[in-house]
């Protein structure tokens, strides 16, 4: 048998090393430089208030296109490809539009028995004189429940991302302190803003409530009315500061209102779906179309949707502002 002297260099040995994970993962992928003297800026400990990482410097080193030809090429190709892709997509979509049915023509496929029944029998079957509301909260109520859950889950995600809790790490506590500094200037006591909002906020609230309550009678409904109320709350917060809003709106209020509204929506509509699918009478009176107390479940459902939307908008604002409510 012949023993090889250069076993270390043989392919089999290299394979064995690769299988064992003995190859240094950074080998050949990283430029290793000795530190430039003792007074390197990177090793200097940060002083108080100075960020530990200089983000600009890190970015300029990581994306050092002057020394990394591969990265430079990749970036050029990537940008070219993405622009080309977008242009192609836009072109294809515009080209398709030409072949679509003409807008507003009476023989279009969308003018079929579906929309005919919504228009002709909508008032009779849902009790709502506003067809759109009748459609989204009665004919297709399951989709709308899904949409309210989209808002709910979006609020949950913002809570995950933005809420600062006491258990958070040290860095975040520091951040929290900064945010509180921002709040120290609250309320800004801007006289013009305060006086104007004294007049506007009640009007905005009344208008929002009107839109929600008349959702089944006139254009509007829970989504639009809720957005109006939410913006009124945000205006009030900007004029008078967190101290005043916290007297009536905290995270607890937010959670309770959302829970109550969505639970009611869920239970009420489950009852209606269940009876509908099993061909039972739901026993919910539709009332006279046009009256404020009419159209069965639509009015309470509009109120629920409005509450969820208003709370979610306000919650988004406060979470982005100071990481809590």
């Amino acid at each position, binding site marked *: 048998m012949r023993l090889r002297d250069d076993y270390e260099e043989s392919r089999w040995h290299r394979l064995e090393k690769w299988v064992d994970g003995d190859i240094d*993962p950074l080998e050949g992928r990283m430029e290793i430089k000795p530190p430039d003297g003792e007074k390197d800026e990177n090793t200097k400990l940060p002083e108080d208030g100075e960020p530990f990482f200089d983000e600009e410097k890190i970015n300029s080193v990581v994306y050092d296109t002057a020394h990394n030809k591969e990265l430079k090429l990749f970036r050029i190709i990537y940008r070219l490809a993405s622009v080309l892709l977008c242009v192609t997509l836009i072109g294809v979509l515009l080209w398709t539009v030409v072949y679509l049915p003409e807008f507003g023509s009476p023989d279009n496929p969308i003018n079929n028995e579906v929309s005919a029944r919504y228009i002709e029998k909508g008032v009779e079957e849902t009790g709502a004189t506003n067809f759109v509301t009748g459609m989204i909260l009665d004919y297709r109520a399951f989709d709308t429940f899904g949409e309210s859950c989209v808002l709910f*889950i979006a609020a949950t995600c913002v809570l995950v991302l933005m809420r600062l809790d006491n258990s958070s790490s040290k860095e975040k506590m520091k951040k929290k302190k900064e945010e509180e500094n921002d709040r120290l200037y609250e309320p800004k006591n801007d006289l013009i803003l305060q006086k104007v909002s004294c007049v506007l906020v009640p009007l905005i609230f009344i208008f929002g409530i009107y839109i929600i309550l008349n959702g089944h009678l006139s254009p509007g409904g829970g989504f639009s009315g809720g957005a109006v109320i939410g913006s009124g709350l945000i205006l009030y917060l900007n004029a008078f500061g967190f101290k005043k809003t916290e007297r009536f709106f905290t995270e607890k209020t937010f959670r309770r209102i959302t829970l109550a509204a969505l639970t009611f929506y*869920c239970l009420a509509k489950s009852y209606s779906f269940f009876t509908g*699918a099993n061909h039972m009478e739901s026993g919910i009176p539709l009332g006279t179309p046009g009256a404020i107390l009419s159209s069965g479940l639509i009015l309470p459902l509009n109120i629920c949707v409005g509450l969820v939307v208003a709370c979610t908008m306000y919650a988004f604002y406060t979470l982005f502002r100071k990481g809590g409510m």
Partner: protein
Amino acid sequence: MDFVCNFPFFSIILAMFCGILSSVLKGPWAKRLCLFMVTAVLVMSSAVLAYTMKTGTSYTYSMGHFPAPWGNEIRAGVLEALTATGFSVIMLLSLLGGMSHIFTDVEETKTNLFFILVDLLMSSLLALIYTNDLFTAYVFVEINTIAACGLIMIKQDGHGIVAAIRYMVMSLLGSGMFLISLSMLYDITGHLLMEPAKEAVGAIVASGSYEVPLLVVIALMSVGLAIKSGLYPFHSWIPETYGYATPAASAILSSLVSKGYIFLLIKVFYRVLGYENVVSSKVINALFVFGLVGMIVGSVKAIKQTDTRKMIAYSSVAQIGYIYMGIGLGTKAGMAAAVFHIFTHAATKSLLFISAVGLYEVSDGKADYRSLRGSGYRNRAAGIAFAVGALSMVGFPMLSGFISKLMFATAAVQSPHKMVATILGLAVSTILNAIYFLRLVISIYSPAEREYGADMSHQASRKLKVASLLFIIVNLVLGLFSQPIVNAIDAGLSMFV
């Protein structure tokens, strides 16, 4: 109507309601509620499965007092019930396996938010499975996307946030394409419910009007859902997303979320666009080619990884490629193989993610090949589970991966034009799979470089061991008793038409 027919509706609503309720609960209670919900969904879905198998037909269930073209509707057949059952089993086991990590990775005050996300994710998956209405599908695609983003970033380190942003950008692009194709389809058919829409599509094809919009609809629908499920050229979000999320989230995302979109795509193909129209439009040939390329490129990239989590993630790219290759074959056998591979990959990939975490636990939390040496001895259950998962991915007989590879090969023989490419792709990809998976299996069973304390073996959580063993059983069941499942898939697919 029998009472069982209500169960699909009950399971969707129960999952949504549990999510809403969890917003006021503390973490541990939200966890119990979530586990209860998944178990209840599992029981109900299997009841529906038994019922539809017995009657041999599917049924629609109107959500409200208005019948099909006017009101919302859901539909349950054998394939829907089977998928719901399979998904809830995997959801339950993934949660169980990753449970201890959820409570360490997520801030204590935010654990209930994690379970809200899981509850709503479950409801959206169920709705995607059962829906009989295109717009309902879109609404729940939205919920699914946002919930998945939340699950990725809830770990709250830099990697998680970057991965979530990548996922969000790609996924929203996919949702946008899906929505555009949906509105175009509505414009040319005038229907959102699947059955009347399919009739209208049939009329369009017969009369030859609106040919171009229909082609664009098919293409946009396929591309949109392919982006969301991570088919090859759109896979760039996968490695970071699966590699850096908390283990339970990785397992759920890789094995369920992407599969939900694929299931929706199959459903839309069969129940709205008409499978023969999709085949004749040649769009599936593009899916076939990209699936094939993904199988090879995903495996090659997996070999190059030094971090084993990313390796498993890149392996997902390859496996998604298998599924799209099966869809792209354009035959019923190919589709059945693709659906079976959905189950195989879901069961195996979650097993790999969960058992790999068991191995990291006993290696100081490190995930590179060198640190993992000997971890198979330090945590025996996880080591065996990982070996089983790896062998199943490679296609070892008796395990689920073998059956799906066999089905793909059999399906390939039946479609002469694509036979050579498919079989070659399968062979090359299998060899590449074997290289990177068996390398890791050898690594975890070779002697460690340094002594680990005796307490290391106790660090592994018991729940993870139980979950690993249950996952092995699921894999063996899929591998050894595949015939009834294949029959059920065939029956379900013929109910789709």
